């Protein structure tokens, strides 16, 4: 954290605080207030996008822990979300209360993630990416064919989640639920990153050999990264399944894994804030595109038939352009913007 003018730390505890100084605290509080007011102001469509953003934030932050912080490329994250969705769904269908089922689904996903993380102990870089790709396809096959638990291609139909007698059956209530979970997960991830374990992750990412030499147990920490990351992915999946009230294998394909990786890249690898930006950006992108094509079809009739193809193409284009021109992602742009604000009238 770069020091500001007039900000002096007198203890390590102060320096490690999540929000430094009054302005940051005020800004965060303002953000929370705005978010809490949202359901009263926005219409149902915009609210549903916000809910999807909340869920995507959890997913993207979890992948950024694994890929951005610990340097383990995973192409199987979409399937991990799927494991969470199916586990949470199957548990609540058995009568387990939602408040228990969600963390339990996270734990089941963590176990799955650790299982598929074992190859990471022997494999690096591209080999690991291919191994997790295999995990993705194998898990997808299990979703589709383990009829007894997953309902096969028909899927699972779920009730809206309920906690202590309160049923989250409207989008407003669901928004607060997802927002709450997202906040808890964000705090969890930020806390992890300023702890000893988080620094061990970063050490492994930067150079595994020196990490091992300074005493980081690669075996334990890589597995831990997989476990924590898949736990959060499982929670995101569980939320998503319950929000849609329907779990089928289709959404949890390779495309989802890729879009989560893209969120991390576009937002900024290795930064929690970046993952949040990336999640917001990539969830809004298709919606903006839909709107643009609707407007465009007034001028060019038939433009909307290209919607599916255009979404895919624009996604690819954005990803490629970001990688070539801004590999550090939106998070760097935000930093530059903040610096610009600070210096505003006199740029130097």
């Amino acid at each position, binding site marked *: 954290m770069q020091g500001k003018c007039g900000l002096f730390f007198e203890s390590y505890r102060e320096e490690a605080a999540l929000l430094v100084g009054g302005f940051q605290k005020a800004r965060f509080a303002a953000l929370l207030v705005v978010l809490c007011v949202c359901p009263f102001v926005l219409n149902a469509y915009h609210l549903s996008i916000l809910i999807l953003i909340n869920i995507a934030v959890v997913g993207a932050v979890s992948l950024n822990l694994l890929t951005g912080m610990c340097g383990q490329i995973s192409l199987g994250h979409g399937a991990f979300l799927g494991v969470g969705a199916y586990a949470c769904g199957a548990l609540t269908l058995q009568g387990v209360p939602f408040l228990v089922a969600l963390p339990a689904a996270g734990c089941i996903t963590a176990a799955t993630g650790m299982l598929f993380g074992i190859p990471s102990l*022997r494999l690096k870089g591209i080999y690991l990416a291919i191994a997790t790709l295999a995990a993705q396809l194998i898990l997808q096959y299990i979703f589709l*064919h383990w009829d007894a638990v997953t309902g096969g291609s028909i899927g699972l139909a779920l009730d809206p989640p309920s906690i202590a007698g309160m049923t989250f059956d409207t989008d407003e209530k669901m928004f607060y639920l997802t927002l709450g979970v997202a906040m808890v997960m964000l705090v969890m991830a930020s806390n992890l990153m300023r702890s000893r374990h988080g620094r061990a992750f970063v050490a492994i990412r930067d150079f595994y050999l020196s990490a091992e030499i300074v005493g980081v147990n690669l075996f334990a920490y890589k597995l831990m990264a997989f476990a924590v990351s898949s736990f959060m992915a499982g929670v995101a999946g569980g939320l998503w399944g319950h929000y849609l009230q329907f779990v089928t294998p289709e959404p949890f394909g390779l495309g989802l894994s890729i879009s989560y990786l893209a969120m991390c890249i576009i937002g900024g690898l290795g930064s929690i804030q970046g993952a949040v930006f990336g999640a917001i950006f990539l969830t809004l992108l298709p919606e903006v595109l839909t709107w643009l094509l609707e407007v465009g079809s007034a001028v060019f009739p038939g433009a909307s038939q290209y919607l599916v193809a255009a979404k895919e193409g624009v*996604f690819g284009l954005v990803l490629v352009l970001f990688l070539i021109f801004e590999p550090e992602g939106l998070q760097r742009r935000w930093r530059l913007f903040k610096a610009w604000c600070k210096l505003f009238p006199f740029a130097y």
Partner: protein
Amino acid sequence: MEYYLQLVINGLVVGSIYALVALGFVVIYKATKVVNFAQGELVMVGAYACFSLTVEMQLPFLLSFLMTLGFSVVLGLAIERLVLRPMIGEPIISVVMVTIGLSSILKSLVQMFWGTQIQVYPQVLPQEPYFVMGVPVAPVYIAAFVLSALLFAIFSVFFKYSRLGVAMRATALDQCAAASMGIGIKSIFALSWCIAAVVSSVGGVILGNINGINAQLGHLGLKVFPAVILGGLDSLLGAALGGIVIGVLENVCDGAAKQLLGLGGFKEVAAFIVLVIILMVKPYGFFGTKQIERV
């Protein structure tokens, strides 16, 4: 028994196409250390280009086939220059993601121009089957196998004896040393993308003649990974062998799973289960260069 023989023969044909696509993948990986996730999309674009020349422009098949190859050369050059050149020296994840982004772009272009329906090539080869060991085999299958074998032979000779081939191998071995011997590294990179695009489009045309083409053809690119990992990521011989082994294996496993266990669609995962096992046991495959390193 005939059932399994039929499966093996189907597997050989599919495997020879995997081998072709894997060849393109390995050429790129060997020369530039780029793992190309857009290999399947190169296959698809080649197949659609040839389709539109033969069907929509009514050109004779052979002519449009040659024009497709020319188109692929241009495509390969453009991709290398516009997308991959700026990524030299970037971390692995960026390079992987850039090829994934590329595959999205190619997929969406194909969908915009040709839609998502399945398209069928006109009949080029005769219909009557030949009999191989008492099993009927369509001529197009034999042509596919022979064409793949031919391409492999050509490329083996090319890499072994031609100046350019030797230059490519030198670049793969040590870029610095190659550059100091007067080899243009950038042109080698461009050439390897050209070769990859050309062999992929040949694979696409063959596939189009067998099954017809649709916008899902790009999924083929994923099957390349088991093949190249089995053979070793940087070995041409490995790509050929890996492709054929994976093709046969997945067809036989699929048939056996259907007959013995009643499981459908096992084809999709069989290759990947094999992949995980290989990665755990012998990560550098049959012929890959071993990097001795404790992880």
